[in-house]
């Protein structure tokens, strides 16, 4: 463990990094590196399942679709969590104007989380799922086998412990430091994340209630507390790269997240249309979730406004690009594509089709992947001892931004076309086709989606390469 501590803290190196204000912020670095590593893994498994959609027996029976998908979605969650945690360890000391309460605890937490995550993935791939469930105590408290929450019980408990250690560390830092709106919103979001994760331990036998509280994790995460984290991270980067008065950025932050929760909390109802819950959710879910695009739109306008009114030209232009991209893509993915299927009269036909997949891909990338990449783009140069990367590195990073973003647009459009076909043949038609027969008609769209997936992977590789590009920084 001491090796790790030494590796993560540049203080022991010959030169002291003068780009970061507090030495302990350096613990963010391994978190970001791990996040990018897991991101690559997520995309690789995404390519596998993308391929299996049209070449059904690919890698069967070694890696069946269900297993590969589970790895794809779980890696997504875990790398985003690594990103959030890295962001927390960087952002909170800077905002609080003091060193982290315990850098050592942060490094221990990092290794525990990484090893536990890796073991879980190995378990998914190396063992039949029911054997894994049996070995890890699922018989004591059955929690596995539900989307995104497939982790074994011991992993779930581990996640809670890691989250507690992380939150303890940051909260102690915050309590004795300067309290800014950005840091408070960040902490509220992170605490909310941990609290709502506790509902992953709730798994009633009654399928309706099971599904009802499953959404308390999934929806209240991505359309609730995660948006606080996202807003805080975006606001932090905007304060830094635009030099706009913190007071202005913070009041907009409060207003945007207020709108998010006002619409998003009861907006959970858009998942309660058909799962055995009373009919009034069709009314409440439609009304409130119809307004969920509003805060995303405000966030886009906000980001562009702040950049337009910037008071300095920050040399890290790539970070600014990522910040603006987050605004636009989260509005498109979460706002527009979310709205497409959110009204109960439409959702009746689109529920459980590829439209959900289309929305999910663009929203997760546009909101959460991009905000973490924004944070990484801003902080990694600092953590590596320079204000910004060289012009050549930034150029490559910006190209990677466009390749990945356009690829996700391509994936979303392919899946939307797939959804239109699926809904018309399987749901709307007077003589509806069976599921598998409908799938045959969608094959070209799945080919296209896989092609865009390869583009995305190319973009990701360019992004990773940009970290190794050296060159002189333009003055």
């Amino acid at each position: 463990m001491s090796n790790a501590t030494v590796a993560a803290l540049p203080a022991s190196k010959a030169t002291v990094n003068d780009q970061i204000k507090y030495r302990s912020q350096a613990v963010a670095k391994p978190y970001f590196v791990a996040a990018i590593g897991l991101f690559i893994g997520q995309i690789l498994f995404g390519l596998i399942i993308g391929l299996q959609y049209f070449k059904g027996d690919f890698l069967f029976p070694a890696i069946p679709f269900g297993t590969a998908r589970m790895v794809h979605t779980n890696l997504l969650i875990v790398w985003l969590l690594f990103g959030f945690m890295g962001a927390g360890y960087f952002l909170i000391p800077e905002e609080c104007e003091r060193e982290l309460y315990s850098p050592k605890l942060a490094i221990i937490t990092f290794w525990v989380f990484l090893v536990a995550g890796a073991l879980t993935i190995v378990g998914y791939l190396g063992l039949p799922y029911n054997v894994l469930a049996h070995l890890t105590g699922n018989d004591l408290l059955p929690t596995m086998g539900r989307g995104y929450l497939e982790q074994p019980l011991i992993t779930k408990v581990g996640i809670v412990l890691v989250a507690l250690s992380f939150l303890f560390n940051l909260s102690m830092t915050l309590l004795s430091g300067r309290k800014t709106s950005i840091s408070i919103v960040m902490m509220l979001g992170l605490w909310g994340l941990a609290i709502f994760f506790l509902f992953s331990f709730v798994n009633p036998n009654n399928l309706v209630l099971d599904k009802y509280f499953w959404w308390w994790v999934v929806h209240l995460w991505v359309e609730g507390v995660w948006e606080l984290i996202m807003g805080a991270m975006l606001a932090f980067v905007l304060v830094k790269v635009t030099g706009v008065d913190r007071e202005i950025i913070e009041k907009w932050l409060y207003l945007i997240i207020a709108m998010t929760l006002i619409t998003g909390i009861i907006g959970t109802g858009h998942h309660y249309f058909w799962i055995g819950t009373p009919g009034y959710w069709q009314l409440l879910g439609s009304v409130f979730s119809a307004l969920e695009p509003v805060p995303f739109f405000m966030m886009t306008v906000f980001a562009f406004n702040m950049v337009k009114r910037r008071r300095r030209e920050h040399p890290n232009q790539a970070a600014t690009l990522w910040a603006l991209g987050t605004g636009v893509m989260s509005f498109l993915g979460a706002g527009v594509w979310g709205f497409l299927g959110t009204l109960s009269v439409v959702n009746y036909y689109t529920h459980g089709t590829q439209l959900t997949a289309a929305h999910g891909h663009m929203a997760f990338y546009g909101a959460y992947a991009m905000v973490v990449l924004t944070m990484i783009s801003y902080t990694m140069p600092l953590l590596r001892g320079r204000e910004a990367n060289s012009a050549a590195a930034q150029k490559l990073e910006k190209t990677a931004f466009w390749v990945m973003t356009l690829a996700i647009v391509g994936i979303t459009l392919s899946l939307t076309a797939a959804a239109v076909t699926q809904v018309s043949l399987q749901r709307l038609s007077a003589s509806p086709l069976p599921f598998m027969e409908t799938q045959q008609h969608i094959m070209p769209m799945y080919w296209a989606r896989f092609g865009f997936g390869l583009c995305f992977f190319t973009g990701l590789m360019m992004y990773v390469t940009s970290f190794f590009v050296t060159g002189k920084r333009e003055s």
Partner: protein
Amino acid sequence: MSASFTKSTARNIFYGGSVFFFLIFLGLTVDTTMAVPSHNAKAQLTDAAVRGKKIWETRNCAGCHTLIGEGAFFAPELGNVYVRRGPEFIKGWMKAMPTNVPGRRQMPQFNLNDAQLDDLVAFLKYSSQINTNNWPPNIEG
């Protein structure tokens, strides 16, 4: 134009609004939890169905299938498969997997015994009895 826009008001609206709407959501949750049994009066959650739910979960069925529209979109909807195909078909299907037809999507062989298959069928019967407000639009799911 004169207008004030203060951080403290924005903050108060955030805290007040969030608490306000979360309390409403809690109230609705209480109402829903109480209404679920009568809304789903036809759904028989038998012991076999409870055991079947565990089989459904520990075989990661939702990794490929949807159940009442939730899960993965790789394989057919199973919330109403009991009605669409019937119990014997389901059991026969589970035993016949995988088809090993080249290029086609493959479902693993889970090696369930007869009692487990009965439990799984009981669970799928239960799920088909849930009052989904008439979803899906047709039997194909």
